[in-house]
């Protein structure tokens, strides 16, 4: 009786086996280790915890991680939208190839994108050299971190906006134009509201990913304490010094942030669905 209330009856076999294995594997591999982190952080006294948390080096790393991820998300929201727009609305030679390349940051190991970006933007690199003559330095500054996080976040925005753009009703745009709307007005009043939830979702996902990113950043950031250290790097440094407590405290904060981001993404997606339902009624 209790079992049938737990799940609706079905004649298909394998429920107990597959669900059992899934929850067991999930618990052992993911949940138990995450619980270890929470317990370790919880075993610290409050002053100990706050010491790590409010250490100037930690605070500087939050500022960089948040600031760079936010900026990279913003850059991707603008340029990712333009990329998605050109891929959905225009046909040009090589469009399919460009479309396929968008997923490259998903597939490319982060260490490879890291050293590749460093090779391009380092003061000796081919673009870095040219930028250096204009006084702009990308590698080993916060700008480099933003560039790396932009690369990592790009597919999230493009792949989120693309389907939403396909769904936009072209008749509405045509109608707006017939009624004398300027292209900018059509964009502002018709297209942007329709894709806004997808754009915000993509931005939030790119931002969340950027907060935790490690591999592609550490090669280009220069890793100067207080200046170009991201929070994940600080955790690695603490672990290398066998400061497990410090690492756990910072890790706990990052874990909580990840949960908040996950929650935010869910809220945004729910908002998008409600808007879609409201629009179709």
């Amino acid at each position: 009786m209790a079992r049938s209330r737990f799940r609706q009856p079905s004649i298909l076999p394998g429920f107990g086996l597959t669900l059992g294995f899934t929850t067991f594997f999930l618990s052992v591999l993911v949940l138990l280790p995450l619980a270890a982190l929470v317990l370790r952080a919880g075993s610290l006294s409050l002053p100990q915890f706050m010491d790590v948390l409010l250490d100037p080096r930690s605070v500087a790393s939050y500022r960089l991680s948040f600031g760079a991820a936010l900026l990279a998300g913003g850059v991707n929201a603008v340029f990712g939208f333009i990329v998605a727009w050109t891929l959905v609305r225009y046909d040009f030679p090589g469009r399919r190839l460009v479309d396929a390349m968008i997923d490259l940051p998903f597939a490319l190991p982060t260490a490879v994108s890291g050293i590749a970006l460093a090779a391009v933007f380092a003061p000796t690199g081919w673009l870095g050299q040219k930028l250096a003559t204009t006084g702009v330095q990308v590698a080993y500054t916060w700008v480099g971190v933003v560039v790396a996080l932009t690369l990592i976040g790009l597919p999230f925005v493009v792949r989120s906006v693309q389907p939403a753009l396909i769904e936009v009703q072209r008749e509405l745009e045509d109608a707006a134009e017939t009624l004398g709307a300027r292209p900018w007005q059509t964009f502002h009043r018709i297209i942007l509201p329709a894709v806004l939830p997808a754009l915000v979702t993509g931005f939030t996902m790119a931002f969340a990913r950027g907060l935790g990113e490690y591999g592609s950043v550490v090669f280009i950031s220069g890793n100067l304490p207080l200046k170009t250290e991201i929070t994940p790097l600080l955790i690695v440094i603490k672990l290398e010094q066998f400061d497990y407590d410090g690492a756990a405290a910072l890790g706990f904060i990052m874990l909580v942030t990840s949960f908040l981001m996950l929650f935010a993404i869910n809220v945004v997606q729910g908002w998008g669905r409600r808007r879609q339902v409201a629009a179709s009624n």
Partner: protein
Amino acid sequence: MAGAAPMVEERRVSLVRRAGRGVLIAIAILFLGLLLIAPLGAVLAQALANGFGAYLHSFADEDTRSAIRLTLLTAAIVVPVNTVFGVCAAWAIAKFEFRGKSLLITLIDLPFAVSPVIAGLVLVLVFGVQGWFGAWLVERDYSIIFALPGIVLATMFVTFPYVARELIPLMQQQGSEEEEAAITLGAGAWTTFLRITLPKIKWALLYGVILCNARAMGEFGAVSVVSGHIRGYTTTMPLDVEILYNEYDFVAAFAVASLLALLALVTLVLKNLVEWRASRRMARR
């Protein structure tokens, strides 16, 4: 005002549109060129900076070879395990209605949301010398952290959701009428899965496996935390890239990186092939 003005206006709009189209395509190509193509080109250029001979010579290094072997071994353990898990999870979630399902889906996605560094950190807290099982492991003279098991676990953690993520939405959308019919007609559970379900999901499964493999071979942050960086023993290819790069051995670093970049490109090609096959199947119906 009337008559000619709308015509002029219309022509102006279409001119603006054409110019806009050109400008937007140019911006998109320039942006992607700078962000995606230039770094890829840089990898190739740096790897071949001293000629093709020097490039090939990079792979003669014994430590690099053992890094390649370790990466292949790790993927060979992680990918099958995560594939079995993904299929099980998708079967339970897509074919049955039970309480707490959406919570389970969220938890499966968890490794996507946490930083790879956190994935390494939690394993250190469980299995490291100061960790939960640290003393117990030391007593038995067995190491997980700074050894192969740690690298495998970290990689498994990070690549855990990929197969499940690909299968769950597809299997939910496909429903279970065909499986139910097969079971009603007396087919066994295993036969039903192999003959009915597997053919329907094989392309998505293949793509999930490919993606899982690419991430497993390329994982850096999580593995970096648990590996200990003992060159020749506990360095995977991405870690080998880091060590070579930090030793200013750029040709070798970018040579190994070029292999990983090639893996990424092959993954993208296979992904598009799979998507193309899937859309053709859809069109045929």
